[in-house]
């Protein structure tokens, strides 16, 4: 089911679903934000692409589709892609999450 979009927010098109299959990861740049978009067993999720510990690029990390987590390639912190919360140290501050919808065949991302 598509999430309700915030009327104040801007919605940007990412790509067709076919271009981000399960296990896929994609970096989206919007203004000064870098956002990592993941396909976890068919569920599309997006978080800020910057580890809160040492700015590691999460989109280059290891995606665990069953747990729906990504591991920072720099020091190994794992983040819950639903909440943005780190589930292992050394990171302890959550990263931002972004609502995602699929409209027709297109993945859309809500940013503010």
């Amino acid at each position: 089911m598509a999430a309700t979009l915030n009327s104040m927010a801007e919605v940007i098109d990412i790509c067709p679903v076919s271009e981000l299959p399960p296990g896929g990861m994609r970096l989206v740049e919007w203004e000064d934000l870098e956002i990592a978009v993941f396909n976890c067993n068919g569920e599309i999720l997006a978080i800020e692409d910057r580890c809160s510990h040492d700015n590691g690029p999460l989109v280059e990390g290891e995606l665990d589709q069953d747990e729906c987590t990504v591991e920072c390639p720099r020091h190994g912190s794992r983040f819950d892609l639903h909440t943005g919360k780190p589930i292992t140290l050394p990171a302890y501050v959550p990263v931002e999450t972004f609502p995602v919808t699929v409209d027709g065949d297109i993945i859309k991302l809500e940013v503010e």
Partner: protein
Amino acid sequence: MATPEKTAEQRALQGINADYKERFGFHDAENYLYKAPKGLNREIVEKISEFKSEPQWMRDFRLKALDHFLARPMPTWGSPILASVNFDDIHYFVRASERAERSWDEVPADVKKTFDRLGIPEAERKFLAGVGAQYESEVVYHQVREDLEKQGVQFLDMDSALREHEDLVREYFATVIPANDNKLASLNSAVWSGGSFVYVPPGVHVEMPLQAYFRIHTENMGQFERTMIIADEGSYVHYVEGCTAPTYSSDSLHSAVVELIAKPGARIRYTTVQNWSQNVFNLVTKRAIAQEHSTVEWVDCNLGSKLTMKYPSVYLLGEEAHGEILSIAFAGHGQHQDAGGKIIHAAPRTTSNIFAKSISKDGGRSSYRGLLEVAKGATEARSKVVCDALLLDEDSRSDTYPTIRIGEDDVDVGHEATVSKIGEEQLFYLQAHGIPEEEASKLIVNGFIEPITKELPMEYAVEMNRLIELQMEGSIG
């Protein structure tokens, strides 16, 4: 005038001081079930996992960690001696016995003889709630008092814990220190063996300490124990570890990973008396999570090793959690003690103290390296950092590398640092009261470290004072 007779204690001290080799640095014949060839590769890692009949997830974890280790460069900070660690000249796994026995009588005779010489079974009888004894790569003896076992306290070697409590181990393993945290943690994650697993159920207070003793015996040995302590809600445990090794002319490597989890209202005290021989690189990662209203205390005494790089840390993740780091480092000739601690305040009304003391003599080098971080939102955090260094001669060196990051306005943080030399005036004053110069020097050093040794259980405080006094022999003149 006749020389006054030495007291029994002085004679004993002199005897012990004859050399480290006599008391701790002795080596017996090698009689192993398996000794891996020197060097590290995928085959060695797979062999360790196979020896231990581990589940697939742990084997995968090890192999991934090996990739991280190989990909990471050696750190360039800390100490110039670090560059001389030769990872190809180390035995990564040595098996001395089939299993961790619960009776000393079952431990192989020559191994038991070693621990007898070190006084471990005697200490167990007198004042400990449980003991784990690791010889080379694996734990050879493990026992916990029956009454604690009945209360649900788990105190096992880590290999047995993985077999007997796989779900619990898997839930927490590497969540405090991931395999990719740093190069040495990656190395430990790839080849870990032995160490302790402690679980204390809610509300249980373990009044007497649990002790682990780590012994390296082989030349060019690598010891990579892995320890995890989980103190459930409102519980208390004090874990003490000691370590020694024979003196060899070539280097050995000790690289442990220690993860502590203090659940709400729990308290963990972790005491280390590190007395490796001076051919051991001691490169250890220790980190704790403190949830709300819990307390974690690291009491970290570093006397031995060639180079120690160790900064126990506490992440104060829950409101009103408290962290405490008490650190003593003693650097003698040829030694570099790069020690300190890290505290991260990540929740409101958290409190912490770091007290670090170092003594350098005979050209030894000690460094305090610390981090104090207060995250945004950790309002009303309070912290005090005090680091004092004592230099006993002109050739020795002391450095302080404190880092403080404050992301919140409403905090109370203090930092004090002093470096002092044993003053002529202090010595003169004591000598004027009839105390010989060497004795006077010891008194000054004892007074300097007393705030930390008084935090040790009595038996360890006595031992610590003795060791410091021994290190002080001949330091004047």
